[in-house]
């Protein structure tokens, strides 16, 4: 429907196709690009999987520590929030200087761009775990490690599911930003976007953007949102 209006407006008004593409141009660009899009998509998704795993581990651990150690939270909490507001591409120069133009730099941008948000979400989520679970756990004999394993871990799954969802969108954005700027040997989606710009191929630019948005939406709608819903239903939230 929307696409139809877009296409019709394009034809009626007569925009020039090198300034702004119509859906039909984008579709054609996608077909032309198919050979490159597929591999680039795989590269990007592989990076996302690896980097997101790292940043989840780091972020969740940091969130747990911030939650547990109050003095650290007071000292570092505001800093974490501040870093979270930093656009992730701002990590690129530091990444290049520290690692060079390579996969490590890419991972660095992704992890830095998303783990702080995950840590904050995790900490806030843990703060919402009712105090009564602690009392009930102590009464039932869940102390020390058992408390973490059998009470805190399951009790914080709603928080974790939400931080997963938020962390993913941060990670995906960071990675695309990183790929856009860092021309590493293997090419991801961000590189195709930049390539489109350098050839002044507006259809390609928008086509790649469409793929990026599609990936973000697919993962969120089909994977993370249902996961969050399931956890919430289990908890009766």
């Amino acid at each position, binding site marked *: 429907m929307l696409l139809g209006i877009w296409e019709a407006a394009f034809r009626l008004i007569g925009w020039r196709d090198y300034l702004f593409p119509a859906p039909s141009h984008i579709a054609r660009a996608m077909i032309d690009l198919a050979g490159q899009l597929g591999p680039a998509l795989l590269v990007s998704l592989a990076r996302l999987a690896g980097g997101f795993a790292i940043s989840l581990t780091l972020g969740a651990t940091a969130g747990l520590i911030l939650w547990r150690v109050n003095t650290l939270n007071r000292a570092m909490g505001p800093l974490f929030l501040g870093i979270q507001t930093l656009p992730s591409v701002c990590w690129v120069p530091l990444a290049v200087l520290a690692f060079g133009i390579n996969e490590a730099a890419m991972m660095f941008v992704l992890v830095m761009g998303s783990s702080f948000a995950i840590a904050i979400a995790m900490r806030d989520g843990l703060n919402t775990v009712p105090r009564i679970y602690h009392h*009930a756990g102590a009464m039932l004999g869940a102390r020390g490690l058992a408390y973490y394993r059998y009470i805190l871990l399951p009790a914080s799954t709603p928080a974790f599911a939400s931080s997963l969802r938020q962390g993913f969108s941060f990670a995906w954005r960071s990675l695309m930003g990183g790929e856009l700027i860092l021309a590493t040997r293997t090419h991801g989606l961000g590189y195709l976007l930049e390539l489109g710009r350098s050839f002044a191929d507006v259809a390609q630019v928008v086509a790649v953007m469409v793929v990026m948005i599609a990936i973000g939406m697919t993962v969120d709608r089909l994977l993370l949102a249902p996961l969050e819903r399931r956890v919430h239903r289990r908890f009766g939230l």
Partner: protein
Amino acid sequence: MTGHLELISVSKKFAAAQMHALQNVSVTCQPGEFVVVVGPSGCGKSTLLNLAAGMALPDSGSVTLDGKPVTAPGPDRAVVFQEHGLFPWLTASENVEFGLKMQGVSRSEREDRVAAALRMVHLSHSSKKLIHELSGGMRQRVAIARAMILDPAVLLMDEPFAALDAQTRTLMHAQLQELWSQTRKTILFVTHSVGEAVRLADRVIVLHAHPGRVRREIKIELPHPRNFDGREISEIARLVRNEIEDEVNRVNKQLADDFWKPVKPTDLVDVAGDMGSGI
């Protein structure tokens, strides 16, 4: 027989204020006794229960169970919380099972004991349900089963039925009586409801507030299970209610005196009589 719970002249201050939540309060539960502590809000009755549970430590005085000092929460003093405190990620039966799992009881023994505990609270049919799928009354029954399965020396109950509707509460009273006469556990039960107190208790302890102290102890020697609408029950309830009303009035007066002075009639009329003269 175990279950001799003693709180001897315990005092506890609120963290923020210098006010005593409890001042020099002594409460003793004999093995197998059903003791209900009743009092207006702010009388420190929940604090008292927290001390018995070991979730808080007294500023002075001692808390012992069968002669051993209480220093931390433990399965020998099982608690039924006002807001059940059940784990929403577990089913009803998994909640009941939790304490045994922590104790390292074998799976087959756990299954038998969980089934028995759920039968005791008439919930066998709902064992696979999640907590939010249960009604308020059923949740508290799961909480009671979770506590009883630990085979505690005392059962501590913190206004467990306060959030339930009247019919459910009456049903819960009957079931708790039945459960108590079967197991003869020592029960320390805290409530603000006088009706609840006199229905259930062998002994009612009336606390007064600001600071929390024992105002009166009333032994109720009516046999269990009781007819909740009986004449004797009503009379004892009236007696306890009077105690508490006196207490509430005293506290209100005391609080009011601090900032409220009676208004003199002359304050209300225009003494000079020149009303409107400046117009």
